C-alpha cells in the first residue's frame, strides 16, 4: 500500500464526512418540514429531493456541472463573488456526494420525525419551550435513532458515489480522485491487484457503515 493509497482513502473518508456534515442541517430541516408542516410546493420539493435516487447519477452530475461550472449561473456567481471554483475541485466532490446522499438522509429522518407523537411536542410547548427548544430537546432526541441511521446511510452512499462525482469533479489524482473513481481507473489501466485492494478497502468501510446503521436502527431504547 503506497502513500498515494492512504491519501486516497483519507481523502474519500474526509470528503464523505464533510459532505454528510454539511448535509445534516439542510437534510434535517427538510425532513422536519416534510414531516410536520403543510406548505405550498411541498410535493415538488419532495420529488426534487428524491430525484437523485432514481435519475442516473451521471445525469445528476451533468445538471450539477451545468449549474456549478464556471460558466453556469451558480458557479459563475460563486467564482465572481467569492473566488470559489466548484467544478473539478474538492468542493465539487463535496457537492456531488452531498446531492447524491441527501435523499437517503431526508427519507430516513422524515419517517423518524413522523413517528414522534406530536402531542409530546405540543405539551413541551405548554411547558414554556419555544419551537427550537422543542426540536432539540424532544423531536430530535426521539427521532435520534432514525436520524443517525439516515446519517450513516448518507455517509455510506457518499463513500461509493461515482457518476455525479466524475461529471462534476473529474478524476484528478491527488485532487478529486475518490476510492470508487480510483478503482475504475485501476481497472482501465490493467492494475488489477490495486483495483482489488481498493475494492477490499471500500467493502470494509461500506460494511462498517451499514452495520452501524442497522445496529442503530434495531438497538433497544434504554
Amino acid at each position, binding site marked *: 500500500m503506497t502513500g498515494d493509497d492512504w491519501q486516497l482513502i483519507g481523502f474519500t473518508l474526509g470528503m464523505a464526512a464533510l459532505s454528510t456534515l454539511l448535509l445534516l442541517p439542510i437534510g434535517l430541516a427538510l425532513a422536519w418540514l416534510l414531516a410536520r408542516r403543510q406548505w405550498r410546493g411541498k410535493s415538488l420539493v419532495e420529488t426534487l429531493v428524491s430525484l437523485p435516487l432514481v435519475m442516473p447519477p451521471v445525469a445528476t452530475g451533468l445538471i450539477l456541472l451545468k449549474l456549478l461550472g464556471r460558466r453556469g449561473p451558480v458557479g459563475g456567481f460563486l467564482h465572481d463573488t467569492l473566488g470559489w471554483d466548484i467544478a473539478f475541485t474538492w468542493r465539487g466532490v463535496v457537492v456531488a456526494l452531498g446531492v447524491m446522499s441527501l435523499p437517503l438522509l431526508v427519507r430516513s429522518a422524515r419517517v423518524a420525525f413522523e413517528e414522534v407523537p406530536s402531542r409530546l411536542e405540543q405539551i*413541551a410547548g405548554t411547558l414554556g419551550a419555544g419551537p427550537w427548544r422543542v426540536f432539540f430537546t424532544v423531536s430530535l432526541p426521539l427521532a435520534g435513532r432514525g436520524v443517525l441511521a439516515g446519517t450513516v446511510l448518507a455517509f455510506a452512499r457518499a463513500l461509493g458515489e461515482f457518476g455525479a462525482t466524475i461529471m462534476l469533479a473529474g478524476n484528478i489524482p491527488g485532487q478529486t480522485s475518490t476510492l470508487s473513481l480510483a478503482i475504475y481507473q485501476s481497472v482501465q489501466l490493467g492494475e488489477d491487484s490495486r483495483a482489488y485492494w481498493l475494492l477490499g478497502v471500500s467493502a470494509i468501510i461500506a460494511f462498517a457503515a451499514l452495520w452501524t446503521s442497522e445496529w442503530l436502527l434495531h438497538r433497544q431504547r434504554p
Partner: protein
Amino acid sequence: MSLVLENLRIRQGEFSLELSATLGAHVTGIFGPSGAGKTTLLDMIAGLHRPAMGSIRLGDCVLTDCAARSFVPAHRRRIGYVPQDLALFPHLSVRGNLLFGHRGVEPSDARFSLEAVTELLEIRPMIDRSITALSGGEKQRVALARALLAAPVLLLLDEPLASLDARLKQRILPFLRRIRDAYPLPILHVSHDPAEIRALCDEVLVLDAGRVVRQGAPDSEQGGAAEDVHSSSRSN
C-alpha cells in the same frame, strides 16, 4: 382570575364547537360524553389549536382574539396542561421531565419549587427512575408535578383519572385534592364521571356535541345531567 371564552368556534371535519362562557371558579369541571369537544376546548385554551372565530381571555390577558388576529403561542401562555395520555417524555428520567418546564422559571411562590411539588405529590423516591419504569398512578403524579413546576397561571387537566382502574383512582384523587387545596390557581378539570366532578369541582360546564348544555354548581342534579347527556348521546 376569570377565563372568558367568547363566541369560540372551531370546525374539525364533521364536528363543530361553538360556545361562550365565563369561568371564574377555583376548580371548574368540564363535563360531557366522548366527542362533546372537551379536549378540543382545552387545546384551544392552551394555544394548541386556533379557533376559527372568537376570543379567549385570562384575566386581563388576551390569549386569542381572532378578530384582532391576536394569538399568544402555547409556550408564552403559562398554561399547564396534563393531557389524557400524559405525554411524558420517554427519553428523559422523572427528574428530566420535572425540570423540563421548571428551567428558567423563577417561582415567586415557593409552592412551585421542586422540593414543594415533589413533596406534595410524593415523587421524591422515584425522581431518578426512568419514565418507562413507573406505574400508571406514578406517571399520573409525575405529569401533574411537571405541569405545576412550570409555575402556570391556569391548570388544564384532561380526564386525569380516566385511564386508571378504580383502586388507582382512589389513590390519585387525594393528590388532586392536595393540588386544589395547595394552589390558588384556577383549574379546569375535564371528566365524564359525575362523581369525580362532584368530588373536586366548584362549578361545572356541561358540554354536548360542541355546545354548552348547562353551567352551574356540580350539585346532585349533576348526576342527572350527566346521565341525560350520556343517554342523549347514546340515543343519537
